[in-house]
């Protein structure tokens, strides 16, 4: 028996851009067929160029090897291709090029509670979810008590899960997943749910799995958990492997790089030069903001119109956490402010006295428009790390899982 668990060779995956049209309709196919001869008669080179632009490589020539019993962390920014890699390895989707050989039974956990049915009871969902994750019926029956025990929802086992609180739901879902015993386990950021205590419990379970000599491939934005679980890590950036080293080295490099590269990037598939008005830059001051401390966002808008528009424009900054949950919106309209754009560059400074975010990584969406009309909208164009800081004097804020903090007055009545 060889000691290799996963062997990946030149793996690539190409996706189509343009999520707006997730499915075809027959009409489109007929229209395209009708247009094709005309398009062929017309300017061929432009249509060909456009065709190229519609695709992008989510993974580009990835090769690596994982030994049996090894726990490997996979690190990278949002959209770097981590999830695509796990999706290919768990056979949900096929690669466009390259091969991957997997020696052993694979269990993948890309989401907790996959296939949970709201109408079914907790007990029934354990069997359903277990089977979906690849457990045999007698195996689930064998581990049933253990699963219930781990979840801590035994009182509500015969209640439909639609009446569960979201915390209970997640506990039950993870409990099933945690008792999956494949030889190779692929995990994607599923531990980020639930309260802090339960997260610790889950990490403990994951550690146990890794300790049993199973192979684990673990995607997470939680560097502490990666450091705890994985000896080695792979850093992925724009679909390629940037670094493959011991976890502490990779994490150090990644965090350092992330701090120095929190620069603005237009990820929109629209060509900025085509737009007369668009965001051209965003920066923050200081570069490493701290919880509870002042922070400035400096937004730059470029306007190439010759005629100076008299329209009044509003700007909104949306902050999202690493799980892409919307956390905070900073909107000029809320403060009853709007801006008249100058020709060329308009710079706007937005100041917060006390950054109300707990320590962690956040990324930014930018919106420019007037009323409900959108002129430019950028998703995930910037990301930054909030370091621990003092919210009120001498009160050091730790990340307790609640992202937003506000100042409050407390008095005895």
């Amino acid at each position, binding site marked *: 028996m060889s000691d290799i668990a996963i062997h990946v060779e030149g793996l690539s995956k190409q996706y189509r851009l343009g999520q707006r049209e997730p499915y075809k309709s027959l009409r489109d196919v007929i229209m395209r067929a009708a247009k094709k001869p005309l398009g062929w008669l017309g300017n061929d080179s432009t249509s060909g160029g456009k065709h190229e632009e519609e695709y992008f490589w989510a993974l580009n020539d990835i090769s690596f090897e994982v030994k049996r019993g090894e726990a490997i962390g996979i690190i990278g920014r949002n959209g770097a291709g981590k999830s695509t890699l796990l999706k290919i390895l768990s056979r*949900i989707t096929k690669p466009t090029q390259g091969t991957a050989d997997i020696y052993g039974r694979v269990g993948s956990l890309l989401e907790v509670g996959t296939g949970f049915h709201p109408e079914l009871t907790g007990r029934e969902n354990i069997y359903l979810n277990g089977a979906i994750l690849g457990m045999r019926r*007698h195996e689930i029956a064998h581990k049933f008590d253990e699963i219930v025990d781990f979840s801590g929802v035994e009182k509500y086992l015969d209640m439909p899960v639609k009446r569960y609180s979201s915390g209970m739901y997640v506990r039950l879902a993870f409990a099933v997943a945690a008792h999956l015993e494949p030889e190779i386990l692929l995990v994607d950021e599923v531990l980020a749910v639930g309260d802090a205590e339960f997260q610790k419990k889950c990490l403990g379970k994951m550690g146990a799995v890794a300790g049993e000599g199973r192979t684990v491939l673990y995607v997470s934005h939680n560097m502490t958990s990666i450091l705890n679980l994985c000896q080695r890590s792979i850093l992925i950036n724009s679909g390629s492997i940037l670094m493959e080293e011991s976890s502490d080295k990779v994490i150090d490099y990644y965090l350092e790089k992330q701090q120095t590269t929190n620069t603005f990037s237009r990820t929109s598939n629209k060509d900025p030069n085509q737009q007369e008005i668009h965001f051209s830059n965003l920066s923050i001051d200081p570069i490493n903001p701290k919880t509870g401390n002042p922070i400035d966002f400096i937004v730059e808008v470029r306007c190439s119109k010759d005629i100076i528009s008299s329209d009044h424009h509003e700007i909104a900054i949306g902050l999202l956490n690493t799980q892409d949950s919307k956390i905070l919106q900073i909107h000029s309209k809320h403060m009853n402010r709007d801006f008249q754009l100058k020709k060329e560059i308009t710079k706007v400074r937005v100041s917060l006295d006390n950054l109300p975010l707990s320590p962690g990584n956040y990324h930014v969406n930018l919106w420019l428009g007037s009323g409900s009309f959108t002129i430019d909208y950028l998703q995930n164009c910037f990301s930054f790390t909030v370091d621990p800081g003092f919210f009120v004097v001498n009160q050091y804020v730790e990340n307790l899982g609640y992202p937003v903090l506000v100042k409050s007055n407390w008095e005895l009545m």
Partner: protein
Amino acid sequence: MNRLSPQKQTENGNNKSLHKAINHHQSIVSMSHEKISLNAVLNPTDGADVLGGINLDPIRITPPGRWPSLHLQELWDYRDLLWILAWRDIKVRYKQTALGAAWAVLQPLLTMVVFSLIFGRVAQLPSEGIPYPIFTFSALLPWQLFAHAMLESGNSLVSNQQLITKIYFPRLLIPFGTLMSGLMDFAIAFGVLLVMMLVYQIPIRWTVLTMPGFIFLAVLTALAVGIWLSALNVEYRDVRYTIPFLTQFWMFATPVAYSSTIVPQNLLWLYSLNPMAGVVEGFRWALLGNESFSLPYFLLSTGMVVVLFFTGLAYFHRMEDSFADNI
């Protein structure tokens, strides 16, 4: 954190040992103090054996090939999931309905009553000397199974998209599993038919022995249509809107409400290209011994079922690899 790394590396080589595993667990993941997770380490169930044998052959993940294979072995390995998906559909089906499973009896019964009134009484359609309610009910049995497959299996992949994008399993299980709840209704309705045959004092004929064959054919037809429509629906959502019309149209092209004796003789071959025509005629012949059953036309119809089934499988497998990306 760095303090832990060297220790981890020394443990790395020996982590197959149970003892080491416990040590590892306690030292590295010090935050976990739960009894449960420790138990899991102390009593490692022979997971791989329980899970149907250690898979020594590597799974090779490659770009989609030109010739899809059927993976029958894999379907068999996942049979537990098939049952559980079917069980889920059945369990959820009549949740929050006042009448519950009585719907399985009521649906074909009410259709039969309507048909008997409209086509039997008002339109006076011939029923080859068989009492009209029995005549139409014997056809409604396979028809409703088929209609169920069109509607439910047709939409099954799309309505299970959460599963398809998050977990791997043979995708065929989804339309197959959906059919099971239809089979359940079929079994109930079959019981109703037997009661009705007693009430109308229809003699039991030897041809009843061929019933399993016709039931198999009905299931095969339903499967064929189910896999075709479900795979098409992933790519073209038009299918969803087409299904209700298709079902209506198809029913009138099938001898459910009338006897195929009213079809002109020179058009019978065309009529028999409908796979369901053969199934329905076969059911009637086995149960009631009607005279309109003709073997050549039946075989033509059955041939169409086989063609539909295998082209459906081929199409499904060709599209299967991109389901997760397209759905």
